[in-house]
């Protein structure tokens, strides 16, 4: 590969990488917040709401991400929802992630021992305080591996956004490949780059996990 290509396409690729990171970060943020909200709403004893949330989760998890993107980006205008490609991409990524995060959080919520909540209740703590101080920290520990894993999956899903013309890294790379005819080399470079990126995300996640779970390092002597 010609090194002058780097000069020529470097800025575009860098910009593309910026868009990738933006989409990933914003998508994760929307997914986490919405997923957490869905999990909380699902705890309310309102049957129709529970059914609705469950249907949402099953629909998102049962259909391809690409179809969801097409629906949002191409189908949206039919109902007056006109989104720019990048906005649609971020929103799509967020909605997609939210269903998976909601399930992860639900499992985490259920994994917090009931007794820890009862102890807080018996001390007169409010539900808000119990959620903040007891349930969420407890959940964090049990769900962190799954959250990190999902965030790594979302890193990979960002490349799908190129199909709806979001100008992220994959899109810029394909433009470059088409213009230079160095298609295979470019794609191989991409493969190696994403391999590295996903590995870095996973590793950082594992390090974070180790930090968060430090206090669990010694097992209890209590019979249980």
């Amino acid at each position, binding site marked *: 590969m010609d090194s002058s290509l780097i000069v020529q396409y470097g800025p575009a690729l860098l910009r593309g990488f910026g868009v990738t990171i933006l989409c990933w970060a914003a998508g994760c943020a929307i997914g986490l917040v919405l997923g957490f909200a869905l999990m909380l709403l699902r705890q309310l004893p309102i049957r129709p709401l529970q059914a609705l949330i469950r249907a949402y989760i099953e629909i998102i998890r049962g259909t*391809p991400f690409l*179809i969801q993107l097409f629906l949002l980006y191409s189908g949206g205008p039919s109902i007056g929802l006109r989104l720019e490609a990048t906005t649609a991409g971020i929103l799509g990524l967020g909605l997609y992630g939210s269903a998976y995060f909601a399930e992860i959080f639900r499992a985490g919520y259920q994994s917090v021992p009931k007794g820890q909540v009862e102890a807080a209740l018996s001390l007169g703590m409010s539900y808000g305080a119990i959620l903040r101080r007891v349930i969420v920290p407890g959940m964090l520990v049990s769900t962190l591996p799954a959250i990190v894993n999902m965030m790594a999956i979302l890193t*990979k899903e960002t490349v799908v956004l190129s199909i709806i013309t979001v100008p992220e890294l*994959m899109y810029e790379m394909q433009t470059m490949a088409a213009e230079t005819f160095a298609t*295979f080399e470019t794609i191989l470079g991409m493969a190696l780059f*994403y*391999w590295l990126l996903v590995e870095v995300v996973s590793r950082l996640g594992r390090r974070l996990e180790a930090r968060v779970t430090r206090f669990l390092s010694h097992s209890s002597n209590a019979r249980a």
Partner: protein
Amino acid sequence: MKFSVILDALPYLLGAAVTTVWVSLLGVLLGQVIGVLVCVARQSGNRAADIAGGVYVSFFRGVPLLIQLLLIYYMLPLIGIDVPPLVAAVGALSLASGAYVSEIYRGSLNAVPHGQSEAALALGFPTATIWTRILLPQAFRISVPALVNELILLLKASSLISVVGVAELTRTSQTISASNYRPLEIYLAAGCIYLAINGALALFGTLLERRLQEG
């Protein structure tokens, strides 16, 4: 929303869904073969095989499927293999699936108590027999839920092969909505078909799991 549009397109969409299903099934079946081979290679005790298997698993799990697909699609002609896009697509799905399946089997093998192969060794079983008679049947049984799940994942992932022009469900939806300007209806219909197939698969998985638990 016009539902007549969906009715008109339905025969084409269902036909394309058949392609989606068999491409995914083929991908999972080949993925099974690759997965078992890689898993056995990594457990064989041969260091080179272990490292090669590890790199394979790491690469195909770490690189986005879309890139794997394009890589294979563009690589085959370069090394002089001229195949239709469909073959490249199935190849990419199988290779990706194989990486995940080998990890599923690795987890399941770890769940088979070590004492069982020791007992077989003590009885004088040859290594190959221990694999085929003791370890793999149990690993398979433990793996069933994960494998059905893998099929569902692959079915969804197969939508990506639309980019190399394979006329499966997603590609066909794109083609139809580009000609009738009704993307909302068409993609909704496509989504429902994916959902129905995956729902059926999930149900099948539950039944299969129950059967295996009884047997």
